[in-house]
C-alpha cells in the first residue's frame, strides 16, 4: 500500500513540476506573452508587428570613419562602407495609423559585416525610458492604455503612475520639450539602452549611441499634414531628391553613469565618437519589402558588441520574439 502512495506522490510531483514550468501557476508574473497581449490589444492586426506596426523599408550604406574600431572588435566599425537594410516606423499596433498622431518614431536597421556577423539595431526618438524594469514598463503601458469601456485614456491613472515613478523625470522632461519634426529624416534616434563595446584586449566600454540627422526641417521637402501617410510620403520625396544621412555618435559612460539604468540621461560632456554615417538611398513599401519579415531584436549583436545588464534591454529579446512568433504563425497560416 505505502509503495502505491509513494508512486502516486512522485508522479504527482513530477506532473506539478511540468505544469509549473509551463507557467500554469504564475498568472501574475509579467511574461513576454502578457506583454505582447497588452501591446496588441483586443483586436490584433494579424500578420503585423504588435508594436511599431506601421513602417517603411529602407536600404543604404554605413560609411564607417574607422574611429570606433579601437574600441570594438566589430568589423562594421573598420574604415569602409557596409550595406544595410532597415525600417522607419511609428509607435502603435495599428498598421494604418495616421503618421502624425504617433508619439514615438523609430529607426531600425540590420547590418552584416564581411565576416558574416549581423548587428540588429532598434532606436527610438526618446533618449531614455520612463522606468527601469519590465514590470514597471508593463504598468506604464497599462496606465497609458485606453479604458476598455470609454476607449479613452484615463488622465488620473496616468498621473498616478508617473507620480509613483519619480525615475520617469528625465523622460517627462524630454516629452515636455520634444516637438516632432516634419520628417523621419530630421529626427534624432537613440539606442536608449547601453551596450558594451569590446576591444581587441577584451576591455569593455559602456556606450549609448544616437543617430543624428544631417538634415533639419529648414532644408527638407514639404510635409502634407492632411495625409495619414504624411511621413512616408515626405520621406519618398526626400530620398528622391538626395540620400538621407545620419551620423552615428557613440557616447562613453564614465564612473558617474550607470549603464544598467535606462531612465537617466548621460551628460552631454561625455566623450563622443562619430562612428560613421548611415546613408539611406532607397525606400521600399513595407508590404513585400525587405524589412517586412525582419525582427529588429537589439540583442542580435556581432562579436565586439555586448548587451549591458539593463533589465529593459534584456527583456526586449523575449518580447520581440513573442511578437515575431505570433505574426510569423499568422503569415504561415494565411498563405
Amino acid at each position, binding site marked *: 500500500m505505502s509503495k502505491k502512495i509513494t*508512486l502516486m506522490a512522485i508522479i504527482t510531483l*513530477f506532473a506539478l513540476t511540468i505544469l509549473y514550468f*509551463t507557467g500554469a501557476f504564475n498568472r501574475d508574473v509579467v511574461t513576454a506573452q502578457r506583454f505582447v497581449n497588452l501591446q496588441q490589444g483586443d483586436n490584433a492586426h494579424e500578420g503585423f508587428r504588435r508594436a511599431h506596426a506601421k513602417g517603411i523599408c529602407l536600404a543604404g550604406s554605413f560609411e564607417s570613419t574607422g574611429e570606433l574600431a579601437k574600441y570594438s572588435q566589430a568589423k562594421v566599425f573598420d574604415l569602409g562602407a557596409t550595406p544595410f537594410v532597415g525600417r522607419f516606423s511609428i509607435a502603435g499596433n495599428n498598421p494604418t495609423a495616421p503618421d502624425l498622431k504617433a508619439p514615438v518614431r523609430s529607426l531600425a536597421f540590420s547590418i552584416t559585416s564581411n565576416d558574416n556577423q549581423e548587428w540588429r539595431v532598434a532606436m527610438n526618438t526618446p533618449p531614455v525610458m520612463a522606468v527601469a524594469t519590465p514590470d514597471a514598463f508593463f504598468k506604464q503601458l497599462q496606465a497609458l492604455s485606453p479604458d476598455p469601456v470609454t476607449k479613452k485614456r484615463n488622465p488620473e491613472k496616468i498621473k498616478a503612475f508617473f507620480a509613483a515613478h519619480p525615475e520617469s523625470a528625465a523622460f517627462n522632461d524630454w516629452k515636455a520639450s520634444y516637438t516632432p519634426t516634419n520628417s523621419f529624416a530630421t529626427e534624432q534616434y537613440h539606442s536608449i539602452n547601453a551596450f558594451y563595446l569590446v576591444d581587441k584586449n577584451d576591455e569593455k566600454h559602456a556606450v549609448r549611441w544616437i543617430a543624428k540627422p544631417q538634415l533639419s526641417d529648414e532644408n527638407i521637402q514639404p510635409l502634407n499634414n492632411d495625409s495619414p501617410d504624411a511621413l512616408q510620403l515626405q520621406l519618398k520625396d526626400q530620398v528622391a531628391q538626395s540620400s538621407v544621412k545620419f551620423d552615428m555618435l557613440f557616447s562613453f559612460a564614465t564612473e558617474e553613469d550607470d549603464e544598467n539604468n535606462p531612465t537617466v540621461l548621460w551628460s552631454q560632456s561625455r566623450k563622443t565618437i562619430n562612428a560613421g554615417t548611415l546613408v539611406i538611398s532607397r525606400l521600399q513599401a513595407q508590404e513585400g519589402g525587405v524589412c517586412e519579415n525582419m525582427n529588429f531584436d537589439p540583442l542580435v549583436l556581432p562579436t565586439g558588441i555586448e548587451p549591458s545588464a539593463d533589465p529593459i534591454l*534584456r527583456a526586449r*529579446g523575449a518580447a520581440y520574439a513573442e511578437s515575431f512568433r505570433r505574426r510569423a504563425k499568422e*503569415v*504561415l497560416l494565411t498563405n
Partner: protein
Amino acid sequence: MNTITKYSASSMLIHWAMALIILSMLFLGLSMVQSLAVWQVEAIQLHKSFGVLALILVTIRLINKVLYKSPALPPSVPKPQALAAHLTQVGLYASMILMPISGWLMQSADERTVSFFGLFTLPNLVSKNIEVYAFFREAHGLIAYAFLLFIFMHVSAALYHGLIKQDGVLGSMLPGKHK
C-alpha cells in the same frame, strides 16, 4: 529469445546523461520563452549550446543502440502495455531527434547563429524566411509538449515497474544489482 536483463554500461551512461540534459533543456526552454528576466539572454545561449550537445549525443545514442542489444520486457508484461511502452519509446526517440533539428532550423530561418559554447558555429541550413521560421518555431514548441508527455509516461511506467511490479524493468537501466 533475447536473454539479457540489463542495458550496457554505455547505454546507461548516455540514457542518464541525456535524461538530465533533456529535462533541464525542456524546463529552461519553457521558462525562457516566457521570462523577461535579465538571465534570458544567457539562457538562450546555453539552450543553443546544450541543444547542439543533445544532437551530438542522440547521434551517438542511435549508433550505440545498433551496437548493443536492449533487454526485452519480461513476458509478464501484458501485450497492450508492451505496445504502449514501444510507442512511447518511438515518441521519445523521435522527440530527441526532432527537438534539436527544429531548433536549428528555426534559428537558421531567422538568420540567427547557433554556437556551441563559443567553440564553433553551426552552418545555416535555410535562408531567411518567415514562413519556414513559423513552421519550425511552432514545431519546436509542440514537440516540446509531446516530449514532456512521453517523458511523463516513461517515468511513470518505470516507477510502476520498480515500485509495484518489481519485475526488473527499472533495474535494467540502473547500475549495480537490482531485481
